[in-house]
């Protein structure tokens, strides 16, 4: 089960600095934990997060086992024109998830 929560202001004035928040559901298994029988639980994390605006990269982050489960990230960008933000998470075992949000700049 995967689900992403994105928070982008619906409207902004040109030149406004807006905050974007993104959260996705993922266990972020560290690979350092053991079961009761002593077996290592294999690593299963999201390794990279990218945010693009109209195809251009706005922000990128590398995640590590030290990133908490259900990784949350917040960052800022300059609202210059109306358009669409695309979000992409990539991780172990072929994990891939995308989401998008639009903004209207007046």
């Amino acid at each position, binding site marked *: 089960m995967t689900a992403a929560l994105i928070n982008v202001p619906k409207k902004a004035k040109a030149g406004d*600095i*807006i905050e974007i928040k993104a959260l996705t559901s993922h266990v972020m298994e*560290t690979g*350092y*934990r*053991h*079961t*009761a029988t002593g077996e290592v*639980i294999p690593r299963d994390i999201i390794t990279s997060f990218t945010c693009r605006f109209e195809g251009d*990269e*706005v*922000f*990128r*982050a*590398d*995640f*590590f*086992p*030290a*990133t*908490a*489960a259900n*990784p*949350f*990230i*917040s*960052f*800022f*960008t*300059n609202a*210059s024109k109306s358009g669409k933000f695309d979000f992409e998470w990539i991780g172990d075992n072929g994990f891939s998830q995308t989401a998008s949000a639009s903004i209207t700049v007046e």
Partner: protein
Amino acid sequence: MRRQPVPTRRRFLGLAAGAIGALPAAISVRPAEATPEMMATAIRAVTGGAPVQTGKVKLDIPPLVENGNSVPMTVSVTSAMTANDYVKSIHVFNEKNPQPNLGNFYLKPNAGRAQVSTRVRLADSQKITAIAKLSDGSFWSTTADVVVTLAACTEDVI
């Protein structure tokens, strides 16, 4: 009548049992952990040996954390964020988790504000270091000490 705490057989046995009871806590197996050297190596991998100056970076993290599984963290850097003077990337390191990285964040000049928030896991009370790389190639850093009561990352599943 006076009673003195003389070492009797009963007292001795009681103390011995107490000591044995306390033993497992003392010899519990420590998980593999990153060391300050590993953190230094990870920092060198980012800076390439360039000097790192103190300042410009602000690291907001609670000084006392009850649960290391999810610790909110905000890093902000003083910067004009213009096309020729901006923060290229922010890197956060720890010294006692199993591996030394907490996160790498790559910014663009049009970010407007060089500030990033996320949530991290901390396996132990330790020092966190945040380093920012500016567009002119200089590196700036700050550190914060965090006390963690419940460790994360390596606890076993029951």
